[in-house]
């Protein structure tokens, strides 16, 4: 190689180096207010969507994110989903060091292609491309560019100005263009004035630009992220769902479309099954009693198997298939129940809902689009509905538990859809009522028996215990009475009243040393059987509001006896608290030389509160915990 070409090579090399530096990606340039409480910062995100027609949407997305530390790595999203209706045409990723020098380039072939089988769904045809990147130093900046095309326009992309807890956004832009006549619509969610987000609207184009949105911190009791983070949703009146065209400008139309295109014709049952249903009904005329029988029939004959293929993600499999196979997913089983009720001429409606125990999430009332991740069945009962969860083989009839309670759902009737709210258990109905007794022995041992009746959401939390193995049952109750060490469970009995939806636990327990013994005295916590101890975390600087999604009510009445030859030296004083968060009361009454009666009520209210109220709430909980751990002292006489 002669000198000249070597020189040329050097120049080429250096210019390559220069090209590869993106100074603007340097992590030192991030404003400090965005790195507080942040493990990653979205430096620049740009999403361009073009609605080409009712069944064609193209997307071009560029995301530049700086990952500040190893916790931020979980916010590095290198995944792209696709399916038979969504095609990824381009994807490229580049990595830059903290100075903005390019470290690495990844092309589509570097991405792994995997099935989204979750081990839960038996049938699932969604797939994913993803990249495994091992960071070599923090911070680093990751750029991902992708383009995809989908024929699904029913569920349009959503734009979020924040991508998760502990992630800030420096600049984020979304631009969507759409043709006339498809009925484009949009909805802004959680647009608090503290977020700097500008909207720009022109004919056929809508643009949002968000700037300098500081990270949200994950804190105990916070509302779900999606209830705090700013977001814009888009929709079309004329849409296409997995190859099925639709048109709906309100819920009524949407429900009608869903019914006509996805439900109708799926509810036929073989003559044999119809005959069986009629036989089962016999002379019964009361629709609720009939429905109870049929619900039991479904619970005994089917099981839940998740199936997610193509339109199957929306369209239930035929009732006749469920009848033959004895399984189906939530849509299939709800629809099967609907078909069985139809044989008895009882109307019922397929219903879409967001299910989840942890947090209630409702459908957005004013945003007509396919929403929800689960299906249940609504059976009219006067002005109200009875809600039927058809995927559970053990749920009582009409009981939703925490899975689908108190949230907006879409009820799909032949004449159209209707948004309504499912039942909420008021805290008073979400109750645990306990009565029992315990005796303290001379060596501070304890023997006791307690009967607890649970209702509402509290029922949901315990009724499955009757199905636990002896080992798991023991584990569960040793955990519930964790305050008593060396606990022996002498007897555990249950009564599950599915009709009243009430679960009764009768427990007999004992332990060799419950109290503390010193110099002829025994000190023991009076509330041995139900002390509250889940006190909320203390925050130096609480940021988020908080909510108590499901309040509860507890009532305990416990008779306590002390050993012969002992006398009471001190009893905790009665206590009473009344706050906006809840109410607490306990009374300790010395009945005679040997017997003490302990009475307690604790009401925790449902509610949403501001961050400023958090400390007060925490103190309320701590006070309750303190009252619940208050001790009595007894001493040996003579």
């Amino acid at each position, binding site marked *: 190689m002669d000198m000249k070409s070597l020189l040329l090579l050097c120049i080429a090399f250096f210019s390559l180096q220069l090209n590869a530096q993106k100074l603007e990606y340097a992590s030192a340039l991030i404003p400090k207010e965005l790195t507080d*409480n942040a493990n990653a910062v979205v430096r620049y995100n740009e999403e361009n969507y073009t609605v080409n027609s009712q069944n064609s949407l193209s997307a071009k997305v560029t995301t530049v994110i700086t990952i500040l*530390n*190893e*916790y931020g790595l979980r916010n590095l999203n290198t995944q792209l989903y696709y399916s038979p209706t969504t095609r990824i045409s381009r994807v490229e990723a580049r990595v830059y060091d903290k100075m903005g020098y390019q470290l*690495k380039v990844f092309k589509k072939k570097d991405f*792994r*292609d*995997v*099935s989204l*089988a979750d*081990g839960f769904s*038996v*049938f*699932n*045809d969604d797939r994913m491309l993803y990249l*495994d990147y*091992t*960071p*070599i*130093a923090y911070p680093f900046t990751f750029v991902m560019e992708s383009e995809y095309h989908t024929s699904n326009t029913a569920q349009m992309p959503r734009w979020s100005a924040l991508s998760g807890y502990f992630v800030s956004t420096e600049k984020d832009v979304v631009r969507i263009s759409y043709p006339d006549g498809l009925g484009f619509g949009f909805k802004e969610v959680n647009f608090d004035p503290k977020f700097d987000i500008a909207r720009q609207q022109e004919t056929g184009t809508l643009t949002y630009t968000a700037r300098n949105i500081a990270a949200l911190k994950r804190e105990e009791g916070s509302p779900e992220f999606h209830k705090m983070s700013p977001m814009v949703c888009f929709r079309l009146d004329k849409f296409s769902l997995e190859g099925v065209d639709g048109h709906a400008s309100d819920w009524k139309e949407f429900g009608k479309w869903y019914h006509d295109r996805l439900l109708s014709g799926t509810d036929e049952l073989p003559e044999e099954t119809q005959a069986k249903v009629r036989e089962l009904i016999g002379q019964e005329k009361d629709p609720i009693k009939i429905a109870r029988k049929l619900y039991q029939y479904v619970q*005994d*004959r089917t*099981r839940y*198997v998740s199936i997610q293929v193509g339109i199957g993600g929306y369209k239930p499999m035929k009732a006749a*298939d469920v009848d*033959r*196979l*004895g*399984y189906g997913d939530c849509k299939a089983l709800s629809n099967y129940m609907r078909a069985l009720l139809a044989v008895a001429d009882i109307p019922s409606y397929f219903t879409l809902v967001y299910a989840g125990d942890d947090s209630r999430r409702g459908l957005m009332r004013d945003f007509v689009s396919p929403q929800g991740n689960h299906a249940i069945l609504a059976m009219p009962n006067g002005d109200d509905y009875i809600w039927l969860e058809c995927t559970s*083989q*053990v749920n009582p009839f009409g009981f939703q538990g925490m899975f689908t309670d108190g949230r907006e759902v879409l009820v799909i009737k032949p004449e159209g859809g209707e948004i309504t709210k499912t039942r909420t258990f008021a805290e008073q109905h979400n109750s645990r009522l306990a009565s029992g007794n315990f005796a303290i022995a001379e060596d501070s041992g304890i023997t006791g028996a307690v009967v607890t009746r649970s209702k509402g959401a509290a029922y949901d939390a315990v009724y499955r215990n009757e*199905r636990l*193995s*002896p*080992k798991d049952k*023991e*584990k569960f109750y*040793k955990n519930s009475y*964790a305050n008593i*060490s*060396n*606990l022996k469970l002498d007897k555990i009995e249950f009564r599950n009243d599915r009709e009243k939806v009430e679960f009764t636990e009768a427990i007999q327990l004992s332990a060799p*040393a419950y109290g*503390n013994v*010193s*110099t002829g005295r025994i*000190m023991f916590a009076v509330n041995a059987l139900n002390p509250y*101890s889940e*006190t909320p*975390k*203390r*925050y*130096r*600087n609480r940021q988020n509001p908080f909510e108590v999604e499901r309040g509860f009510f507890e009532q305990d009445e416990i008779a306590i006896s002390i050993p012969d030859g002992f006398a009471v*030296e*001190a009893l905790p004083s009665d206590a009473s608290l009344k706050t906006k968060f809840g109410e607490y009361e306990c009374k300790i009454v010395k009945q005679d030389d040997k017997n003490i009666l302990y009475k307690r009520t604790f009401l925790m209210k449902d509610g949403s509160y501001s961050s400023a109220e958090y400390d007060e709430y925490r103190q309320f909980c701590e006070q309750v915990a*303190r009252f619940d*751990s208050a*001790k009595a*002292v007894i001493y040996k006489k003579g």
Partner: protein
Amino acid sequence: MTKQFLAGAFLACAGLFPIALLGQKFLPGKVTVEQLSQKRHPSDTSAAAAVLFKKGSTRLEYKGGQGFSMVTECTQRIKIYKKDGYEWANASIPFYTGSDNEKVAIDDAVTYNLVDGKIEKTKLKREGEFIEKSNKFWSRKKIAMPGVREGSIVEFTYRITSPYFQNMPDWSFQQAIPVDYVEYETGIPEYFVYQPHFKGSLQPQVAVNSIRRKHEGKNRVKNMRTGHMEDEVYNVDFQEQVKIYSMQNVPALNDEGFVNNISNYTSSVLHELASVRELNGVIRPYANDWGSVVRTIYDNSDFGSELARNGYFETDLSVAVSGAIDPSQKLQAIYKTVKDRMNWDGMYGYYCDKGVKKAYQEKAGNVAEINLMLVAMLRSAGIKANPVLVSTRSNGVSLYPALSSYNYVIVQAEIGDSKILMDATDKWASPDILPVRDLNWFGRVIRADGSSEIVDLMPKSKSREIVNVMAKVEAKGKYNGQVRRQYFDHNAMNFRSSNATLNEESYLEKVEKSHKGIALLAYKREMDADMSKPVTESFTFEHDNGVEVIGDRMYISPLTFLVLARNPFRQEKRDYPIDFVYPHQEKINLNLTLPDGYVIESLPAAVNLAMPDNLGTFRFVSQKGENTIQIAANYDMNEAVIAPDYYDSLKDFYQKMVDKQNEKIVLKKI
């Protein structure tokens, strides 16, 4: 019980079993009304489902013109007792779809129900079968049996045909539900030698037989010379060795806390291919002793040649060791260089993928690239160093010499008489402080001359934690003070890996949440960049619930916020060893100043607890001063793993310790 003995518990030896006679072949019989109407399993009444029988075989079948392929067949009949057992009516069978495809076929899939006293059969049709492509190499066949209710019996057969005769599937006799009868048959032509290995405490019965197999036939093949299709006659005649392993009434396997890896205890048989005699008479050995396993690994260019490379790091190495005067400093410097530079991609294995040189340039690589690089650098600097093959905790304990016995590689260096283990994949590890995934009994060191030797991976010394508390109880029962806490060795590694990058505010909130009732004030931490140094933290605290004032007495639990509030061992019985991962020691020293106007009425008495065979000790001493109390609580767990025989004494030991640490001091007003 010693470690060796425990390790031995995984291994069962085939030669010890009574040899049953062939001919008592198990015949499943028809599903009966009695079976269908049975409400619960006779010996495990809480079982949600049970395997009535599981009968399978793996044999090498000869197909004219194509040679041998491995066919595994398995028929299962499962009784569903409860709704919670419905998942047993679904099955998922993974198969390889790389270069040469495996094939899976489902057969005779039937659900039996009792309807009005009669047996009703429902067959699985195509609609209940589905193939799912997991990735480029693997797919799974899934089935969901029809018409399943409480009481149903489901039965299905699957057959996997595989060209990969090196990989005979592992067969488990034990499941998460009871198994009434299980049988596995292997049919191996004389050309192949497979060595069986057993796991778990239950031993199968073995029966052996030999059958003569003859295959004659014709294949149409193209004559390469003439280009015409011709008949080629084949005539193969061989002995097939048949072995039948069987077991009856196998109890359900259940997982417990503090268990290393439950698969170590699952009764099963694994087969290792030892050698193949090809049809032309040449015997091709596959690894069957440590020497040949090691040789095979060493000779692989992704191991041996990568280990021999050294040009890529020479300049950096000389800079790294420039300040070091003795071998020990050199070792530290080289280890630090590799650990700081390299970033582990999370991949296991003992072979390099992109190679050490490229990994070095890219600063990222798999475990082999990082640790072989470390060996090469140490050797290059004149320190004796060798790779150590390891089976990680997730891989289970290696039972026999085979390439698959290991899935990871670390480093052993020798300076004088001392041998030091190192793993540079973990930023928080240090010499002789290995990441927890590595701590799995024994590894095997491979020396440059190809010889190899077993290496004990388990930590020898106790990881310490030392806590000093200076605290004060005030007249109204306020309790506050200062804590200084030091973490050593594995405790330091764990502390660093879970807290080093957490910001202080979040860390304090976390500590307050775990130490109930305290508020942390002034906090300080000394965390040396040298990972072998301990971590020290100190803070002042205020405690809301540490003292109870009842009448004219004060009840103080001065250690409550620092120690376990309750015994972690609560279950009555224990089946598997208790795995503490590494031996450890905790020392707490408390100096408590008492309020004026009170005298000590009672003080927790001193105790000295010891577990049998010196497995663990706990010493508690309390002492009165003028207006102070000194308490020292020392806890030692001398072994990393405790055999289940000791469970009762461990449970009792822990209970007494927890009680003592939470015992109250009583003060009385004067």
